[in-house]
C-alpha cells in the first residue's frame, strides 16, 4: 500500500527565481524507512513540507502536480487535516514545542483530532512510553534540554500513531549519543509498529544502516532512488559530497560494494581477510603525525600559549558547577576540537575565552584578541545588507564581495557561517578563534570548506578551538581533541588517538579500520594489507 505519492510535482516558493522541486514523481510504501539526502537547497526539506501539506498551504508559491499523503490529496486537504495521517517533526526543537508542559504538548495533536479524553490520556501515555519520556510528562517544557525537547516534539508527532512520520534533520542539534538513539528509536518504531519513516538528514553515516531506501536530491529533482548500497555507489560516482566516510573508504581502497554502515563494512573486510591483520602502521597513517609533532615539541621550548584556561571553574549562582577546574592551553597555530555530550560544559568554556563569562575561580589568559563564533550565525547579523555588516575589503577577503546587496539571512548556511566568522574576526588574524558547534545543519561540502578556512586561520598563526559533536568534522579540522565531561577535561590528545578506538567519539572510518581516522588514511592501511595478503 502506498502512503506517500508524488506525481510530477513542481513547486516554486513565492518570489523565488527557480523551482525548489522539479517534476518529482515517487511512491513510498507502507512500512518503509526512507532517507532523503542532498546538499543544502537541493529540495529535500521542501519535499518533506510538500508531503505534510505546508507546501503550498502554508508557504504559498506555485504548485503543480499532485501529492497524496495517506490517501489524502494535499491540494484539497491542508496540514491540519493531514496531521491525522502524517506526523511531522521540523528542524528547530525550540519552535517545535508549543505548550508549557510535556503532557499538554503530547495531548495537543490528539485533542485537535477531537479524541475523547480517555483516548487522549492513553495516547499521551503510549507516546511517552514509546519514547522513554515518561518521567518528563509533568516537567515544564522550558526546563528541557535540546535532546529532551526533540524527543518531546517527536512524541507529539507520533501521538495518535500516524502511519507516516516525516522528520527534517531531527539529529542536527543532538550529541552523537542522543542522535544515534533517536535514529534507532525511529528504526524500532518502524519495525515494531510498521510506521513509515521519511527522514531528511545530512549525516548519512548515522542513519543509512537503518534505512530501506534513499532518495538523493539534486537541484530539486530526485537524482537517485535506491537502497542504501545503490545510493552510495551512485554518490561515490556522481555526488561525492553525499558519500559517507565508509563509502569513500571503500571507493579509495578499490573495494565494492559500498557499505551502508560499520557492520556491513567490517563484514566485507572480514570476508576479504582485511580485518584484524597485524600489518605494520602505514607511513601514511595519521597516528604517526601527532607523535612526530609531540617529539618536536619536546625538543623545542614551549611557545607562549595563544589561549590558556588555568583552573577555570564556573559555578552558577544557586546552581551546579558547569566547569570544574579546567586546565587547557592552545599554542599559536594549533587546531583543537572540544568534544563531549550535551551539557558537558563546551559552550560555557568557549564563552570564557573572550570574556562573555567570567570564571568564578581560575583565570583565562590570551596572547591577544579572541574571536568567538557562537552557535547560530544569524545572531551576528544586525544589518539588512551584507555590505552594511562589514567593510568592502574585509568582505572581499572573506570571498563575500559579490553578495553585498543580499540580506544576510538569505545566504546559504555556509555563506552565513563565513560572514559571521568574518564579523567576529574583523578580517584580521586573532590570537585565537573559537567556534561553537559551527556545522549544525551544514552539508558535507560546506563542512569541508569551513575546515579549510580553519586550517588557513591556524596557518596564519591563530589558535583554533572548535566545540563540535561531529567526529568527522573534528577529524577534518583539528589535530588535537579535548574531551569534556561534567565540566572536567577527561581526555586530551592527538585526534589520531582520541577519535579512534571509541564508539561515539570516533569517526566512521576509525570504527571500521582500527588506527585510521579519515577515509584516505583507512584506504592506505587497507591497500597495505591487501599488498601483504598478496605478497606474504
Amino acid at each position: 500500500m502506498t502512503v506517500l505519492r508524488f506525481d510530477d510535482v513542481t513547486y516554486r516558493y513565492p518570489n523565488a527565481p527557480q523551482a525548489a522541486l522539479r517534476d518529482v514523481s515517487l511512491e513510498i510504501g507502507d512500512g518503509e524507512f526512507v532517507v532523503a539526502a542532498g546538499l543544502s537547497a537541493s529540495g529535500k526539506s521542501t519535499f518533506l513540507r510538500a508531503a505534510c501539506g505546508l507546501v503550498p498551504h502554508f508557504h504559498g508559491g506555485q504548485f503543480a502536480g499532485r501529492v497524496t499523503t495517506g490517501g489524502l490529496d494535499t491540494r484539497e486537504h491542508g496540514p491540519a487535516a493531514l496531521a491525522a495521517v502524517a506526523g511531522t517533526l521540523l528542524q528547530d526543537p525550540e519552535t517545535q514545542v508549543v505548550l508549557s508542559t510535556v503532557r499538554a504538548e503530547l495531548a495537543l495533536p490528539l485533542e485537535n483530532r477531537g479524541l475523547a479524553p480517555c483516548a487522549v490520556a492513553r495516547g499521551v501515555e503510549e507516546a511517552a512510553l514509546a519514547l522513554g519520556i515518561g518521567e518528563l510528562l509533568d516537567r515544564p517544557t522550558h526546563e528541557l534540554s535540546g535532546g529532551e525537547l526533540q524527543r518531546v516534539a517527536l512524541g507529539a508527532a507520533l501521538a495518535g500513531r500516524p502511519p507516516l512520520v516525516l522528520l527534517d534533520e531531527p539529529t542536527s542539534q543532538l550529541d552523537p549519543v542522543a542522535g544515534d538513539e533517536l535514529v534507532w528509536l525511529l528504526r524500532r518504531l518502524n519495525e515494531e509498529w510498521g510506521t513509515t519513516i521519511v527522514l531528511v538528514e545530512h549525516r548519512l553515516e548515522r542513519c543509512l544502516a537503518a534505512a530501506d531506501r534513499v532518495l538523493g536530491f539534486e537541484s530539486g529533482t530526485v537524482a537517485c532512488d535506491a537502497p542504501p548500497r545503490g545510493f552510495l555507489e551512485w554518490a561515490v560516482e556522481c555526488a561525492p559530497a553525499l558519500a559517507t566516510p565508509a563509502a569513500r573508504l571503500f571507493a579509495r581502497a578499490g573495494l565494492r560494494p559500498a557499505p551502508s554502515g560499520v557492520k556491513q563494512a567490517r563484514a566485507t573486510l572480514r570476508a576479504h581477510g582485511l580485518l584484524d591483520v597485524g600489518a605494520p602502521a602505514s607511513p601514511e597513517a595519521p597516528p604517526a603525525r601527532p607523535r612526530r609533532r609531540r617529539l618536536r615539541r619536546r625538543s623545542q621550548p614551549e611557545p607562549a600559549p595563544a589561549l590558556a584556561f588555568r583552573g577555570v571553574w564556573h559555578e552558577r549562582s544557586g546552581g551546579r558547577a558547569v566547569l570544574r577546574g579546567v586546565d587547557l592551553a592552545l599554542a599559536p597555530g594549533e587546531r583543537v576540537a572540544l568534544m563531549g555530550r550535551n551539557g558537558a560544559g563546551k559552550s560555557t568554556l568557549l564563552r570564557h575565552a573572550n570574556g562573555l563569562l567570567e570564571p568564578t575561580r581560575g583565570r583565562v589568559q590570551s596572547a591577544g584578541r579572541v574571536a568567538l563564533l557562537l552557535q547560530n550565525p544569524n545572531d551576528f547579523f544586525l544589518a539588512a545588507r551584507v555590505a552594511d555588516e562589514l567593510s568592502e575589503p574585509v568582505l572581499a577577503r572573506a570571498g563575500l564581495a559579490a553578495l553585498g546587496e543580499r540580506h544576510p539571512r538569505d545566504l546559504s548556511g555556509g555563506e552565513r557561517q563565513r560572514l559571521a566568522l568574518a564579523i567576529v574576526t574583523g578580517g584580521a588574524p586573532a590570537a585565537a578563534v573559537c567556534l561553537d558547534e559551527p556545522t549544525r545543519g551544514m552539508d558535507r561540502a560546506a563542512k569541508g570548506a569551513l575546515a579549510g578556512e580553519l586550517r588557513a586561520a591556524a596557518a596564519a598563526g591563530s589558535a583554533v578551538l572548535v566545540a563540535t559533536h561531529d567526529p568527522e568534522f573534528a577529524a577534518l579540522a583539528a589535530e588535537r581533541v579535548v574531551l569534556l565531561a561534567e565540566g572536567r577535561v577527561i581526555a586530551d590528545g592527538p585526534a589520531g588517538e582520541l577519535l579512534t578506538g571509541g564508539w561515539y567519539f570516533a569517526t566512521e572510518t576509525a570504527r571500521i579500520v582500527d588506527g585510521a581516522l579519515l577515509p584516505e588514511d583507512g584506504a592506505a592501511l587497507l591497500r597495505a594489507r591487501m599488498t601483504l595478503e598478496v605478497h606474504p
Partner: protein
Amino acid sequence: MTPRASALHAARAPIAAAYACALVVAVLSFEHPLVLAALGAAIVATGALARCARSLARAALFGVPFAVAIALVNPLVAREGLNVVLRLGEIGPLGHLDVTRESLVFGAILGLRALLVVLAGGALLSATVDPDELLARFRRVSVRSALTAALAVRLVPVLGRDARRLADARRCRPDAAARPNTAERLQIVRAVATGAMDRALDVAATLEVRGYATPAAPGRGRRPPEPWSRHDLAVAVSALALLALCAGARLAGVAGFDAYPRTELALGTAEWVLAGALVLVALAPFAERRGIEP
C-alpha cells in the same frame, strides 16, 4: 508547576484564575490602608501556602521599584492636599511645587496597590494556574484567539532568549563596547523583531502540523462535564466570597477613605472585621489538605 502542590493548584485552571482575579479586584476596590495591608498579608500567605513564595519574591524584585516610582511621582504631580511638608518652589515645566503629606500618603497607597496587583495578578496567577489548561478551555470559545494567545505565550520567552543571544553576539564583535549604546540597542531590537517573524512562522507551522486548525470534529470541545472537586468548590466559593465582601463593603460604606484635601479614613470595628474577613476568606481553601501532595 507541581500539579497538586496546593488547593489552588488542584483546582481547575479557570477557577484558580478567577481566585487570583478576585484578589486583584479586591485590591482595586479599596484605598483604605488597613484593608490593603490585610489583602497584602492574604496574598503573601496565599503564596506561602501555595508554595510559590519564591515566585512572589521574584515578582516583588520588579514590583517594588515600580511601586516606589509611583509613590515618588504622585507627590510631584498631585496639586492637592492641605498639609505642605516641603516647598520646592518653581521647578521648570512642573511649575510651582509644594509636596503635601496627603499626596505622599496617597502615593504610598497607589504604590502598594500596584505592587499587590503585580503579586496577585502576575506572580500568583502564573505560578498556580496551568496556562495550557486555561488555553485549552479558552480554545473552545474562540480557536483563532487561542491560537494567537498560544503563539504569544510561546514566543515571549523564545524572543527573550533571542535578544540575549543577539546581545552576546554583539559583544563578540571586535569593535564592541562593553555596553551597547542607544543605536546598538535599537539595532538589536530591530534584529529581534526581524527574527520574531521567522520564529512566529516556525511556531505557526508547528501548530499547523499538529492539527491546530482542524475544523471542529465530532466530540471535540464536548468533554463530558467533570464533577467539581472539593478544591474546585472551596476556591470558587472563596473567590465569590471575596467579591461579595468587596461589593458589600463598598455598598455599606465600610473602609471609606478620602485622600484629599485632608487624609481621612474610617477605622472602626467594621474596618477591622472587614480586614480580618478578607484574610480568612482568602486563606480558607487552604484548610482542606486532602489530596494535596507533599
